[in-house]
């Protein structure tokens, strides 16, 4: 018992959850979240806010941006605005599907490699081998075999990024499996499955989620690059990369074919990067501690 009675602190007013306030304090992360929300909204509302992305107004080929066609038209008279808007849909679809794919494959492989030491070498050597290819080159090679389609683009990019997720997961598992609480759970007779699912997996999710935001960005970029090169989604599918590929051919007559899809890619990737940085600050206690330390010093 202390002799000195400290004044009772006033009851704190009801506050938002801690993670919301930590996130909101980072203005840049909020800007990223707003950008992403904008892209998602555009993608979801595509049929409402735009016309058909495949309708060809042949008479109005390569017409400049104006009141009829806000972003102009392409070489066969398709509305660039509608194609950019539907392109957002495709990018979001590819991004989320690749994240899902790489999480399922990457987390399983990383868990197995990190938890069962005997399998570690075999699994991780395969992952190292896949990572020895530059991402875009492996994706191009896989597309050559799989053939152009949206699903194949997702598979190709997913295969490229799964080993990166696996490596992060394995790293966390190696640390977590040696902690006292895992040992305690094991001593209490928990099975391997319950150890992994209830104790190890939840604790190694933070770095994986952060990785997920960067995989999402990389997937959007890689899809655009593949489609731009002509080995991604088929040419009639509205994709930012496809519009840019047309734009390259008509760059002198129709710069809007480059400028608008280009701006869409940039804003999306910028939003994802900012959001990812914010997530990392939020989920990584080490960095979070550092920030408060810096604020105190300031």
């Amino acid at each position, binding site marked *: 018992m202390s002799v000195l009675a400290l004044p009772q602190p006033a009851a704190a007013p009801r506050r938002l959850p801690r993670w919301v306030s930590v996130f909101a304090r980072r203005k840049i992360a909020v800007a990223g979240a707003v950008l992403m929300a904008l892209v998602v909204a555009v993608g979801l509302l595509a049929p409402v806010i735009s016309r058909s992305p495949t309708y060809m107004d042949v008479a109005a080929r390569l017409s400049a941006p104006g009141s009829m066609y806000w972003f102009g038209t392409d070489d066969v008279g398709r509305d660039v605005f509608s194609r950019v808007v539907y392109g957002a849909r495709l990018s979001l679809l590819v991004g989320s599907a690749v994240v899902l794919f790489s999480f399922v494959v990457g987390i399983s492989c990383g868990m197995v490699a990190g938890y069962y030491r005997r399998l570690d070498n075999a699994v991780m*050597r*395969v992952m*190292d*081998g*896949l990572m*020895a*290819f*530059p*991402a*875009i*080159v*492996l994706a*191009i*090679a*896989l*597309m*050559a*075999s*799989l*053939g152009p389609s949206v699903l194949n683009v997702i598979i190709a990019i997913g295969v490229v990024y799964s080993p990166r997720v696996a490596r992060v997961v394995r790293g966390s598992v190696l640390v977590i499996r040696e902690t006292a609480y895992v040992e305690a759970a094991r001593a209490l007779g928990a099975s391997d499955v319950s150890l992994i699912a209830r104790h190890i997996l939840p604790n190694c999710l933070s770095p994986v989620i952060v990785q997920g935001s960067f995989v999402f960005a990389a997937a959007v*970029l890689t899809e*655009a*690059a593949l489609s*731009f*090169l*002509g*080995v991604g989604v088929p040419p009639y599918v509205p994709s930012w990369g496809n519009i*840019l590929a047309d*734009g*390259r051919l008509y*760059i*002198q007559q129709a*710069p809007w074919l*480059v*400028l608008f899809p*280009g701006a869409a*890619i*940039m804003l999306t*990737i*910028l939003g994802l*990067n*900012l959001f990812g940085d914010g997530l990392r600050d939020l989920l990584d206690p080490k960095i979070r501690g550092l920030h408060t330390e810096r604020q105190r010093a300031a």
Partner: protein
Amino acid sequence: MKTYVARRLLALIPVALVVATVAFVLIHLAPGDPASVIAGPDANADDVQRIERQLGLDAPFHVQLLRWYGRLLQGDLGESIFLRKPVTEAIVDRVEPTLLLTLFAMAVAVVIGVPAGVLSARFHNSATDQALMVFALVGVSIPNFLLGLLFILCFSVWLGWFPVAGYSPLEYGWMLTLRSLVLPAFALGLVQSALIARIARSSMLDVLREQYITAGRAKGLGERAVVYKHAFRNAMIPTITIIGISFAILISGAVVVETVFNIPGLGRLIISAVLRRDYPVIQGVVLCVAGVYMLINLAVDLSYLVIDPRVKYQ
């Protein structure tokens, strides 16, 4: 130290084996019979059989795989189906522009990225720092092929300073080559310089917080000596890693940027091979790029021996 080098070299073997296997499997991933896919829809049975024999696809799978390893050990990448010459020859013909573009872009990336990162860290939280980091953030958000298109639009179409596209080989004089590579090299290098600047900045900031820096200041060293002599050298360790990785990224970036500027390098080679389903060429380019990628990573690891004496004692 010798064991460290030996260990790193030995570790390459399984990775190389996986790389070779993946390159082999590529041809079998295609749905249906690879020979008829390569021959195309209009081919007759004779053509299909010819291709099957040429690629050795008539042998059982494991025999094909073993033959593939054997050929690779002899440096034989097979024969291109459409170019009608050995794949190694096709690659050697196309390697010059890709190599020059990558080196040029690397120079751009390092010369801009490292000083920007170090300055940012030295004047932490100043206006310079914030401006540089905003620039870097925008930089990492622009894909290189988009930046290339914007450069063409700005510097070739509107200002007319550079050729719109194309490549002038070294044999016509290096000035022309350099001129034809300025825009692609900046498109490729600027994006990478943003990444290098971010890493250089954060590793400088980490090092500047170390006790030996405080000790240096305490014994009266000038800020310049502290930053450029003590901190810089230590901060370069993660930065060298990222520069090595950048080099590898730049090679694969060159593959994409070549299409933007119509440069006849390895990138054009693999893309046209994909469109023509010329699998031996695809496999050859993929193996070649992956091989270079692995060697660079090895070089990065070994460079620690020189830069960071602590590695020797591990």
